[in-house]
């Protein structure tokens, strides 16, 4: 059993290297800006969903408030840059640290809550964050923040002329999120999380420090999501509370993982690769009318997949993980 697991982990790592290498050369052949943009978004949402998956999938604490961390990352970067001229790289790190700290501070009371009480608490907390930013004049309130463009530069993390640098950063982010997940899967935390998810009482009685392992998951998850938010702010040059902290972001982070396979290593990326291009295409082909056809398609897909394949699409690719015949 253990050797099979080690074997799978080694193969996962090789597959990841190969996929990352393939992904890295794709934009050299695909020059279409629309497609490149879609690839950036796919990688970004894949990375975000992978990070969400650490807390909600592996550790089983379903959060529908991760938009808070996304928004904090975006706002920290944008505010530090526009108000103090601090380079986005530091904003990224700062946003990550702030988000991780807040996730742990919130985790302290929230992790006592079970099931729906926890889910609703996460929604409510993110909503409070949204309302506060809406009313925070220094941070641009409802008007948001426009990030001034100062020309192409890795130092300032701005590339108005090409999508390629964004693509490579998003790819790196997806790789980091994947690798962190891969690494944690076989760590002490990883085992704890699975135990906590399956049966918290039993885990507690076996000496798993349930609370600490949830805190760890929350911190890692929030840090990575905040880095994603920070990237997003630099990518779109404009943020306002609704566009980085709105509830739909929490949902968008969860969906790829749910679609691909929650609590699995590859689920979030698979989900993002299917869902994000589909979303973008339906939006540009039928959503342009502003009449909600994209929502109908999107929502219908969510219902169909969650009912038809509750374990996620990843199950289609790995028959060996099915329950053994008894």
């Amino acid at each position: 059993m253990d050797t099979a697991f080690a074997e799978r982990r080694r193969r996962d790592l090789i597959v990841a290297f190969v996929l990352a290498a393939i992904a890295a050369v794709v934009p050299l052949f695909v020059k279409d800006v629309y497609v490149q943009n879609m690839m950036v978004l796919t990688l970004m949402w894949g990375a975000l969903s992978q990070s969400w998956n650490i807390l909600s999938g592996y550790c089983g604490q379903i959060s529908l408030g991760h938009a808070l961390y996304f928004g904090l990352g975006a706002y920290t970067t944008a505010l530090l840059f526009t108000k103090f001229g601090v380079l986005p790289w530091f904003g990224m790190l700062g946003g990550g640290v702030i988000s991780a700290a807040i996730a742990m501070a919130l985790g302290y009371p929230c992790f006592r809550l079970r099931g729906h009480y926890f889910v609703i608490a996460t929604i409510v907390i993110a909503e409070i964050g949204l309302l506060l930013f809406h009313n925070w004049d220094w941070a641009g309130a409802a008007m948001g923040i426009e990030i001034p463009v100062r020309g192409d530069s890795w130092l300032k993390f701005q590339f108005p002329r090409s999508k390629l640098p964004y693509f490579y950063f998003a790819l790196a982010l997806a790789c980091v999120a994947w690798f962190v997940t891969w690494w944690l899967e076989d760590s002490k935390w990883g085992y704890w999380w699975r135990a906590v998810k399956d049966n918290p009482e039993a885990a507690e009685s076996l000496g798993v420090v349930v609370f600490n392992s949830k805190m760890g998951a929350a911190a890692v998850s929030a840090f990575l999501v905040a880095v994603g938010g920070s990237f997003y702010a630099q990518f779109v040059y404009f943020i306002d509370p609704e566009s980085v902290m709105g509830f739909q972001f929490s949902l968008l982070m969860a969906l790829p993982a749910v679609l691909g396979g929650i609590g699995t290593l590859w689920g979030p990326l698979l989900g993002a690769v299917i869902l994000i291009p589909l979303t973008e295409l339906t939006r540009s082909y039928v959503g342009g009318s502003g009449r909600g056809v994209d929502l109908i398609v999107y929502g219908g897909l969510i219902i169909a997949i969650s009912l038809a394949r509750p374990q996620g699409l990843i199950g289609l690719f790995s028959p060996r993980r099915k329950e053994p015949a008894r």
Partner: protein
Amino acid sequence: MTAETIIQSLASGLLMGLLYGLIAVGLALIFGLMDVVNFAHGEFLMIAMYATFFLFAFFAIDPLLSAPLVAAALFVFGAVVYLLIVRFAVRAKANAGMVQIFSTFGLAIVMRGLAQYFFTPDYRSVTHSWLGGKTVSVAGIFLPVPQLVGALVAIAAFGALYLFINRTDFGRALEATREDAGAVALVGIDKNKVFALGWGLGAALVGLSGAIMAIFFYIYPDVGASFALIAYVTVALGGFGSVFGAFAGGIIVGLVEATTALLLPPSLKAVGIYAVYLLVVFIRPRGLFGSM
């Protein structure tokens, strides 16, 4: 801030709170019955409001008269949603909690999309209804008539629901199923039928709320979202599954909202509700009236 202003806003908070309770009680009923949270609850409210609006716009039926019609229509709708979606969601063996959340979320998104498609994103309102824009003065306090009637309807609905659950065969089947869904099958109660009727009843209650809300609130495809969040908070505050909890939770939410509006800028009035929710569940992790 005079004592009069405070009493005035607490009074309107109380009225609004009863209506919040009415919106939430269907959610509580369904949750108590089968441990499922309907994340499309706000969209149920939204279509009830549209139904009321169209009955008014095309047939000039006043919301007060169309309320029973809308409730009946929503009853059918709720039962159909159970039979087409929820029935399968609760059967999922893997990730049961997730499936249930996302299938109803998916439904919410579809309903919002359909509303945008058929009704456009425009804001609509029921103009010149019998009660619209009227106020009465009780002991020097001015109360808006639509909210007052809404509160009375809510109280009547709570009473009817109480009698229904305690005095009718179906109510007893409902109670028995929520106690032990497995055991009721042994005495010949069709679990699916009870669940479908429970969903119908839950939806009918939100239909009733929607008809009343249509008198004094704008109607647009996203209108459900904010009320749904308040409804989740209301239900969770009272303790999931407790119909009485939803009633009490609604009153608390209404009063807290009114108080917050006195102290903070209007755009932050929801913060008070959310903060009280967090405070309550942090102290009592199963809500005020939930069993520990």
